[in-house]
């Protein structure tokens, strides 16, 4: 609770007799005034000074002698790290970690500018791999969430550069992200970091699939491996954080299949060799189910509905309808589980997924033969009715479970 809220609300509480004026004073004393504004001015001032110094250096960069340029690069990086340590020791966490993050960014800039200075050509991502390595080391040393996020982003950038510019996938960068950041997350489970890590890994997995010119459905093997890792994680919110990106990707893919799967050319682009793909998928499914069983979460096995490989069907419209049935089953299972867990956020999520599926189904099944104005009228009425009904049900279900 913030002091501001307390200051505005507490007179009303006193008036209603909820708390006494003495208690109000005691409560206010618990939240002293923060001296934030004072710290802001010097920060802005130093930011401006830093920017002016940066523009002077940038304007004269080519004209400076090499040794001075090197010294500037090393000095600014060392200065940022030293400054960060200084502020961290004075318990100024945000400024301290900000400077450490700046130091890490300056390290990457240093590598790039130095190799540019000597006209060196990068043939592989080795030089930039050092950047990811430094980020990983600092993540462990500072145990900082912001450095973790920064390192995950750096890993994604390095991998993007490696596959895009250098024509090779950097397996070291991928391994470093999986084992370095993955192990950190495993030991210090965290929902947000799980989502960031999974997103970074999915990005790299996508780049790998593109680099190998493989069918895009292979993407779901590494994606579901990430998901399965979440099943073995004991910390439930952290596991959910890690599992959200792969499941979101699978949901969007299935939604796309419902929309475009009717054309066999699209479904044909998705079909990897049957035995290899199904074998790999079943292996990951086994891993995931074992984890779910171990942690007592077998109920969430319905997530795997989205991975049903419907694209092997040559059904045309039948494939689209089968996919819609899967989507309904999935969003229904999310809603049902949310009610079981009495979790309002998950209920909202399930509702959104349900409505999205209904929109796609409606679009798919009626667009071709219905007059356009009737199409929108009926569609709007259907969605409004559906959301009203779902909301009413949610309110009823949640209030029935509230302790009296």
């Amino acid at each position, binding site marked *: 609770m913030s002091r501001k809220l307390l200051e505005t609300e507490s007179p009303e509480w006193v008036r209603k007799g909820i708390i006494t004026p003495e208690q109000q004073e005691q409560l206010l004393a618990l939240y002293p005034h923060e001296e934030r504004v004072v710290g802001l001015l010097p920060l802005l001032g130093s930011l401006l000074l830093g920017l002016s110094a940066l523009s002077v250096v940038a304007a004269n960069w080519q004209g400076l002698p090499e040794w001075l340029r090197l010294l500037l690069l090393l000095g600014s990086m060392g200065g940022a*790290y030293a400054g960060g340590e200084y502020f961290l020791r004075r318990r100024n966490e945000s400024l301290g970690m900000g400077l450490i993050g700046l*130091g890490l960014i300056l390290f990457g800039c240093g590598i790039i500018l*130095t190799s540019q*200075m*000597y*006209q060196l050509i990068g043939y592989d991502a080795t030089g930039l791999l050092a950047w990811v390595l*430094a980020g990983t080391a600092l993540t462990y040393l500072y145990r900082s969430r912001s450095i973790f996020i920064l390192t995950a982003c750096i890993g994604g950038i390095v991998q993007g550069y490696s596959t895009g510019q250098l*024509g*090779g996938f950097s397996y070291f960068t991928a391994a470093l992200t999986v084992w370095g950041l993955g192990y950190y997350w495993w*030991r210090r489970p965290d929902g947000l970091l799980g989502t960031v890590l999974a997103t970074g890994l999915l990005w790299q997995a996508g780049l790998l699939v593109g680099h190998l010119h493989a069918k895009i459905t292979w993407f779901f093997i590494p994606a579901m491996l990430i998901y399965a890792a979440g099943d073995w994680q004991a910390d439930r919110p952290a596991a959910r954080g890690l599992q959200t990106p792969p499941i979101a990707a699978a949901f969007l893919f299935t939604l796309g299949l419902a929309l475009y799967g009717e054309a066999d050319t699209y479904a044909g682009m998705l079909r990897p060799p049957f035995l290899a793909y199904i074998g790999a998928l079943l292996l990951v499914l086994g891993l995931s189910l074992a984890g779910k069983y171990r942690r007592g979460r077998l109920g969430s096995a319905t997530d795997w509905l989205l991975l049903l490989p419907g694209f092997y069907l040559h059904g045309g419209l039948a494939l689209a309808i089968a996919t819609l049935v899967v989507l309904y089953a999935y969003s229904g299972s999310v809603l049902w589980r949310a009610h079981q867990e009495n979790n309002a956020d998950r209920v909202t999520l399930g509702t959104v997924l349900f409505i999205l599926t209904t929109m796609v189904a409606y679009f798919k099944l009626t667009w071709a033969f219905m007059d356009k104005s009737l199409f929108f009228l009926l569609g709007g009425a259907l969605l409004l009715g559906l959301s009203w009904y779902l909301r009413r049900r949610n309110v009823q279900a949640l209030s029935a479970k509230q302790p009296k």
Partner: protein
Amino acid sequence: MDTFPTFFTRRRLLGLAIAAQMLFILAVAGAGYATTALGRTIVLRTTPVDPRDLLYGDYVRLNYSISQVKPELWHGSEAPKKAQPVYVLLQPANGVYEAAGVYATEPAAAPEQAILRGWVTDSWRRGIRLRYNLERYYVPENTGLRLEKSATRRPLLVRVSVAPWGQARITQVGEVGR
């Protein structure tokens, strides 16, 4: 993980991590000097470019005679793919090096030949376009205009150092006869 062994205190590890980063940047600079010192110098010829196209802020764009090669020079089991890394075998002829073959894997080179690494940017029936990442030369202050003037009259000669470990860097860009 929460307790570090006695010698490797958190402070020492932190110092080590930052010192390693500084050393790495110095090593990159060292690689630049080592490439010149230990590498052999080859001379490449640029093809004339539109002078308005040459100078870009603080670097010039160079287009080499070996930037586009005939498809007969390709040696690989499959057709060259876009963005594929390749090895280009260079043969000296009249003082400059010209492409003698483009390989998917590193070929053996005769003593007078040199190998430069590059990437396929485009491949069609009549040619293969290659990129060496030597196409940008960051010019020292105030020399860009002089280069630009000379490049309109005749092709530039570019001296490139190629280290034994394959690293290449431009050491000099100049006119013919300089």
